[in-house]
């Protein structure tokens, strides 16, 4: 039987505020345990939450970016359950009235087509702390630094049909929250993570199959692997005559498998009710309009502009606009060197390769956009060849200065003096009579041999086109 996969994602993205959602404590990552947890975060008797208004602005910004309905009066609710890292015994979240309602996000599929994925809702909530097992025997430590960190939980419709689509959606959402500057999207630090609701059904069937919820997946790679594993598992269960049970499963990245955490019967009753300590969140048209004015150009619009204005291919434009930093970088390079195709090639090729190799973010790149553009200008005016350009890029990457400095220092200026190239050519012709004969008799492939020899002798500083031309002239080809 042919099976169809149905996936919905719940993405938790940490909002980039300086202080927590309901207290004044800092949200900075990596501090010593419990040093960033104030009385409110500790859930001491008598303390009360006060909403950080900035999170509301960020949620509105997000809602506008996905073309969503914004809830004029949204309500914080308490989600009640006991856990040691949940200080109050309840999490403040939004339940019946989330701040962001129905919206949508366009993703690009592998075949180049686009697909609209529905976003059911996005709501504000506080993060819990974390349990610490290392360094304790027969005990568990609790670190409440993260408790009260603001999260936006973004819930998609069950519109995704493969692990690849899920990854594309997650990547697009990741790019979006970073464009909007509402989250740093740092996945290692847990600022962007997701749960996946996965089910399978026979192709053509309308009703959804029974779903399993895969918890706490914190990388693009894992989301794909976890879903693929789960889909195979569910199909095996059904084809083996069994039934998929509704349950929560944990993805174990080390073993690359999902395993059951709790079944539907064990599912908790969270006893949601409106939090009486907080007033409903009222957002006004004016507030929305003001925030709308601060919206940056979004990835889709930027991609279309790059295609129209710079004549970039859809592939290049998509790749470059997938992160705001890269798009900004590209625009600086392009503005200076005035050659979009060249800029695009270098940004998506050599630069991206170097960043990946060293595990660096664009913001930490040793080669600034200005530096890259400076080098591309030398390439365009034939001061250097493409091959030398690569060498110069590497030198810039190692911190040896800008392109002009390196060219001067290392004497990498391309030889354009015809006489100099001719004398090198003469030597090579004299030394390789056999090849000369073959070339003359029509074996055109040997052009490359001669050009290569010249490049070798000049340390790559000759212009290959010029060598080619001079050779043909000398041999009367």
């Amino acid at each position, binding site marked *: 039987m042919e099976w169809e996969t149905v996936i919905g994602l719940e993405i938790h993205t940490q909002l980039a505020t300086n202080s927590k959602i309901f207290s004044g404590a800092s949200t900075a990552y990596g501090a010593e345990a419990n040093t960033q947890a104030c009385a409110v975060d500790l859930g*001491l008797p*008598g303390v009360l939450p*006060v909403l950080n208004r900035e999170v509301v602005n960020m949620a509105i910004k997000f809602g506008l970016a996905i073309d969503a309905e914004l809830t004029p009066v949204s309500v914080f609710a308490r989600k009640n359950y006991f856990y040691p890292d949940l200080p109050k*015994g309840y999490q403040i979240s939004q339940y019946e009235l989330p701040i962001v309602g129905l919206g949508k996000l366009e993703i690009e599929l592998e075949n180049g087509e686009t697909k609209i994925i529905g976003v059911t809702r996005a709501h504000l909530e506080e993060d819990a702390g974390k349990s610490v097992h290392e360094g304790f025997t027969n005990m568990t430590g609790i670190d409440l630094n993260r408790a009260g960190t603001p999260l936006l939980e973004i819930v998609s419709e069950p519109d995704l049909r493969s692990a690849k689509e899920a990854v594309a959606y997650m990547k697009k959402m990741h790019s979006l929250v970073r464009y909007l500057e509402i989250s740093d999207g740092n996945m290692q630090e847990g600022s962007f993570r997701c749960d996946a609701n996965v089910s399978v059904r026979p192709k053509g069937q309308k009703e959804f199959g029974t779903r399993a919820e895969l918890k706490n997946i914190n990388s693009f790679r894992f989301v794909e692997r976890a879903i693929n594993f789960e889909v195979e598992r569910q199909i095996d269960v059904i084809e083996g005559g069994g039934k998929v049970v509704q349950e929560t499963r944990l993805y174990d990245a080390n073993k690359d498998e999902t395993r059951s955490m709790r079944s539907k019967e064990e599912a908790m009753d969270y006893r949601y009710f409106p939090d*009486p300590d*907080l007033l409903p969140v009222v957002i006004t048209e004016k507030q929305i309009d003001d925030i709308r004015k601060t919206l940056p150009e979004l990835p889709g619009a930027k991609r279309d502009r790059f295609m129209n204005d710079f004549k970039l291919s859809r592939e290049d434009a998509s790749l470059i606009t997938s992160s705001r930093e890269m798009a900004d970088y590209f625009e600086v390079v392009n503005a200076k060197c005035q050659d979009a195709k060249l800029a695009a090639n270098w940004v998506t090729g050599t630069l991206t390769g170097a960043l990946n190799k060293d595990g660096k973010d664009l913001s930490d790149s040793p080669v600034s956009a200005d530096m890259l553009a400076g080098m591309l200008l030398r390439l365009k005016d034939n001061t250097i060849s493409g091959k030398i350009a690569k060498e110069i890029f590497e030198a810039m990457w190692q911190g040896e200065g800008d392109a002009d400095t390196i060219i001067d220092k290392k004497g990498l200026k391309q030889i354009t003096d015809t006489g100099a190239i001719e004398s090198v050519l003469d030597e090579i012709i004299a030394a390789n009579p056999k090849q000369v004969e073959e070339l003359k008799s029509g074996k055109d492939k040997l052009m490359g041999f001669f050009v290569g020899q010249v490049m070798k002798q000049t340390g790559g500083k000759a212009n290959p086109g010029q060598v080619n031309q001079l050779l043909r002239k000398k041999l009367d080809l």
Partner: protein
Amino acid sequence: MYQMTIAELAAGLKSGQFSSEELTQSYLQRIKQYDPELNSYITVLEEQALAQAKAADQRLASGTAGPLTGIPLAQKDIFCTNGVKTSCGSKMLDNFISPYDATVIEKFNAAGAVMLGKTNMDEFAMGSSNETSFYGAVKNPWNTKAVPGGSSGGSAAAVAARLAAAATGTDTGGSIRQPAALCGITGIKPTYGRVSRYGMIAFASSLDQAGTMTQTAEDSALMLQVMAGFDERDSTCLDKAVPDYTANLNDDIKGLKIGLPKEYFAEGLDSDLAKVVEAAIDEYKKLGAEVVEISLPNSALSVPAYYVVAPAECSSNLSRFDGVRFGHRCDDPQDLEDLYKRSRGEGFGSEVKRRIMIGTYALSAGYYDAYYLKAQKVRQLISDDFKQAFKDVDVIMAPTTPTVAFNIGEKADDPITMYLSDINTIAVNLAGLPGMSIPAGFSKEMPVGLQIIGNYFDEARLLNVAHQYQTVTDWHRRMPEQFA
């Protein structure tokens, strides 16, 4: 000295008739002498109180004193007090030394008031008799066999026996007004949102409100002046200017329209107590007030609605007492579930457990709509009744309680009867209105309270109306002979 009101004590301190230290010393002496009998204090802060008194004396000498500077007060043990045990009447918090001050405490400290100690109360403010306290029942100074009311029973008894010049209370369903009535003192529960709840251990967040327990309305005005006002740490606290509560105390009340809700004078009301209340209302007529009968048709629904909303909120509010970070933790927990079960099982008393269970049930999937949501709708109906009534009248008056103080142990095993003792005070909390209780006489030798209910943020009028009655009566100046 101990018989004097805050206003009189402030004058005495200012004129140098006595120092705050002498005054504090005299109250501490009285506490030593009488409190073993009454059990109104959980913690007495002798050293700290005397240090505060000395500082107050310096402030008095330097001329920067306010009306509460150097006045010895008692604080209900529900308010977090920095460095001092804050038990909320529970074994759960018997070991809890608060690392911070509640906003109300901060304000009293800034005003230079002296804190004599922390008063006894029903566990987590759940009770109407002060019998649910981990620290034992408090006795009514007018008859030590009787309850003082609750949950602010310790504060009421302490003020009635003059073991403090005045005290704070909190009122979720009548916890200031009912004990004030049963102990023959004056108490005001302000409008919900008038006084910050920050640092006040939550019972039912949408109903809890702090207020005063004093001898006189004038003293309540002086205290409330310090307590009231916006606090950015409490989102439900209103950013609204605080009027001068003493400015209009002496205004006459000719033409004041008083509404008497017929539902509050119906069955269940003790007939002798009713006569006392009627006499008090006659006194108001003599002062020129106009009295009309009104109806609050949904009054009967207030107790059932309250006993859904309050337990629901409490079941969630008390989840933080889990033995993990503070408070009682069971010995040698075997695993997480054991830690939770035994810490909470041992730390909470039976009334608290009963309400946690009721509330948990009311919020459960499948019951939420039938209980919690319906109760919230009823709450709206009750508020609407009052809104309608206040179109025609300035204040509403009724007996604070249906009977005088009952005996210790009398209702302790019958929660429903116990819950009904708050029948006249609960609706005010559900609506969020300000309400007062003032001494109006005696029935069977026990104090009777007259309840005065005002419109939202009309505390100044309530205080004025109460004060005018106190200028022509002396019930509020009487005190139990045993403690004189």
